[in-house]
């Protein structure tokens, strides 16, 4: 008797896909890394009698607030792209992903310019706990944004070449999750470092 294998029905598929589970594990691990860094920053910040130290430059609050808005706004085109794919509308997905990557690049460029100015004013990695904790914490976040922008670029290329469909868009969904993580992290880090 010839036998055949029938693909599993939708009732057999797990409620959380393996890729999403892997992404959650990655984001949880990354969150613990940043929890450790925030713990380090809290020790230095709360132990200091004056913060920032009197001989150190102040952080540029206005420019960074605008830059934060750029990063947070960048999540909207990506959310739109994911929503469109889920509704089965594949058009303009690549353009939305490219827009998010562009806004992320703007965020990184402004951060880099801000850092160059701070270094010129004497705030370096070796200038005490203030400079050290600032560059390690914010620099670690900037590295994550850089990695996320590179990932967005890859997703944009994939969207242009072969396109995503309603059934196959895991790369876009995982990239979106990671971008949400990077934006959410900045919502915690910005008030902690610049306002607290």
């Amino acid at each position, binding site marked *: 008797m010839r*036998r055949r294998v029938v693909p599993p029905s939708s009732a057999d598929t797990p409620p959380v896909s393996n890729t999403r589970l892997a992404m959650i594990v990655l984001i949880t691990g990354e969150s613990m890394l940043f*929890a*450790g860094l925030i713990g380090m920053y*809290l*020790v230095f910040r*709360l132990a200091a009698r004056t913060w920032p130290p009197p001989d150190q430059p102040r952080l540029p609050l206005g420019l960074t607030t605008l830059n934060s808005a750029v990063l947070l706004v960048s999540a909207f085109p990506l959310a739109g792209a994911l929503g469109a794919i889920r509704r089965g509308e594949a058009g303009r997905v690549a353009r939305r992903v490219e827009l998010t990557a562009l806004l992320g690049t703007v965020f990184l460029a402004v951060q880099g310019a801000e850092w160059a100015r701070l270094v010129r004013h004497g705030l370096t990695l070796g200038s005490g706990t203030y400079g050290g904790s600032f560059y390690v914490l914010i620099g670690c976040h900037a590295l994550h944004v850089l990695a996320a922008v590179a990932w967005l670029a890859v997703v944009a290329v994939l969207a242009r070449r072969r396109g995503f469909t309603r059934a196959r868009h895991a790369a876009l969904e995982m990239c979106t999750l990671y971008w949400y993580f990077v934006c959410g992290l900045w919502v915690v880090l910005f008030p902690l470092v610049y306002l607290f």
Partner: protein
Amino acid sequence: MVRTKRTAFMLALVTGWPAAQAVAQSCAMCGSSFGPDDPVQRAFSWSILFLMAAPYTLFGAVAGWLFYVHRRAAGHRRAAVVELAWSRREAPAGETGGQLT
């Protein structure tokens, strides 16, 4: 039985009460290095509290979300017709799978 339980409770209370106070004291290094309202001591306290809460919050949130998603999916599955795996695998060609009657 009730008397034994009461004796055990009283024994635990008598031995545990002074021990709890001893445990609550800081170690010799922290106790002697910092004053009663030292900012370094306060900084370490808040940092330790944050680092203790972070993993429980994170893993609790993830575990809660996974539990919620699986529970919701199980509810959906209960409403669907359940096919046994062997009935699909061993079904002859041309049949999509048997169902229990």
